C-alpha cells in the first residue's frame, strides 16, 4: 500500500488521525505525520481515513 499526502492541500485538520491513529498523527505544530509502515493489514481503515479528509489530501494505492 502506498500512502501519499499532498502537504499543499493538507490543513492539519486531523480527521484522518481520528479514524486511523496508528498511521496518521498531528505533531506539536498540528502538521500531519504519516507512519506508512503501520498501515500494513489495515487497508480498510486507511481508506476510511482518506475519505474522512475534508480536503482530499490523502491518496492510497494498492492494499
Amino acid at each position, binding site marked *: 500500500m502506498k500512502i501519499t499526502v499532498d502537504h499543499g492541500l493538507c490543513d492539519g485538520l486531523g480527521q484522518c488521525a*481520528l479514524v486511523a491513529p496508528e498511521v496518521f498523527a*498531528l505533531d*506539536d505544530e498540528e502538521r500531519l505525520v504519516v507512519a506508512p509502515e503501520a498501515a500494513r493489514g489495515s487497508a480498510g481503515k486507511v481508506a476510511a481515513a482518506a475519505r*474522512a479528509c475534508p480536503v*482530499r489530501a490523502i491518496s492510497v494505492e494498492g492494499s
Partner: protein
Amino acid sequence: MREVVVVGAGLAGVRAGESLRAQGFAGRLTVVSDERELPYDRPPLTKQLLSGTMTEADVRLAGAEDLGARWVRGTAAVGLDRERRRVRLADGAELPYDGVVLAPGAKARAWSGAVPRAGVLTVRGLDDVRRLRAEVDGGAREVVIVGAGFVGVELASSLSGLGVRVTLVEPFGRPLRALGGTVSGVVAEAAGRAGVVLRLGTGVRGFRDDGGRVVAVELVDGSVLPTPLVVVAIGMVPATDWLAESGLALPSGRIHCDERLFARSGGGSGAPDPRVVVAGDAACCDAVRAADGPVALEHWSNAAAQGELAARNLLAGPAAAEPYDHVPSFWTTAFGLRIKSVGLPGTGDRTVAEAGDPAGGAVLEAHYRDGRLVGAVSVEQGRLLSAYARRLRGERMIASGTEPSGT
C-alpha cells in the same frame, strides 16, 4: 434495487451517491436539489471563500460529476409518498423509487421579527456568501453580526481580516459557548485582539432602516449600533417542511432515524422504513446519544460518514445493515486559532482544562458527565485529540455492554 433517489446535493447526498456506486449499484440514480449550483463543500464558505483565499472552483465537491446520476437542480422536493414510493417535485413531476436517501440539509434560521428589505443577510449557502462579499466589495466597512456560534464567529474572523469593523452580538454571553468556558474565553480574547467589538449578554430588539435599507441595530439594553450591514447568524433549521405529510417521525423538525439510519415512522409506532435512509444535518440518529437522548449533529464529518453508511445500508437492507459508529468531530479556524473537537462537548456536567496554557491561547478542555468522558475541545492542541477519540470509543463500548477490543 433499481431506482434510488437522493434528496439533497450537499456533502451527505453526494457521499451517498458515491457510496451507492462504490457498492456496485448500477441502477438509476437521481439527485434532487433545490439549488441550481453544482455541489459544493460548506466549511470553506465562511472562511477561505469569503476571505478570498479560495475560489468558487476550489469549493466544488470533487467526484459529484462522476456519479452517473441524473441531476434535478433548482427544483425542490415537496413531498414523499411512502405508500406509492414516489418523491414529488415542485414542478409536479414524481420520481418513483425503490430506495430514497433523505439528505435535505438545513436552512439558515431567519430572524423572527421584522427586518429591513436590504442589508440584513443570513449565511448558509454559496449564494449567501456571494451576496455578503458583494456588500463588502461594494463599500460596507462595518457589520453587526447577530449570534456568536460557529458561523457568527467564522464570519467575524473573515470579515475583520478583510478590514471590516465587526461588532458581534451574543445574548447568551459567550462566543462558541457550546465548546465550554475556557475555550470560549480564549476565542473571545482573540476576537478582541483582532479588533472585533463583543457585545455579550444582550440581545437584539430590532432593526432601524432608511428607505428599506438597514441603518442600525437596537439592542435590548437600549444601545443603538449604527451599521449599513447586518448578518443574522442564529443557527439553522432542518429543511424538512416538505416531509410533513410523509408519516415520518420529525422531532424538532429533524428526521428521526434508527441506529442504522433508517427513517422512523411517526405516530407512535416508530417502525423504521427499510426503503428510506437519512443522512446529514437534518438527521437525528438514535446512535448519536447524550445521557438524555439522541443529539443532532451539524458537522462535516457526520454528513460524510452518514451519507456513506446510509447508502450502504439502504442497499444491504435492515437485516444486514451496520449501526452508525462514528465519534463526532468538528473543526474550525477563527482569529488564527485552530479549534477542534471530538465527541459531544456541551453535553457534560463538568469541564476540565487538561493541557495547554489558556493565557497563551492554547487549551485542551475535556468534558465529563457523571465522571465519564463525553467530549474534548482543543485550541492549538490538536495532536492530543486522537487519544481522546480513542477514550470516547472505549467509553461507548462499555456503555453498550461490549468491552473494547483494543484494536
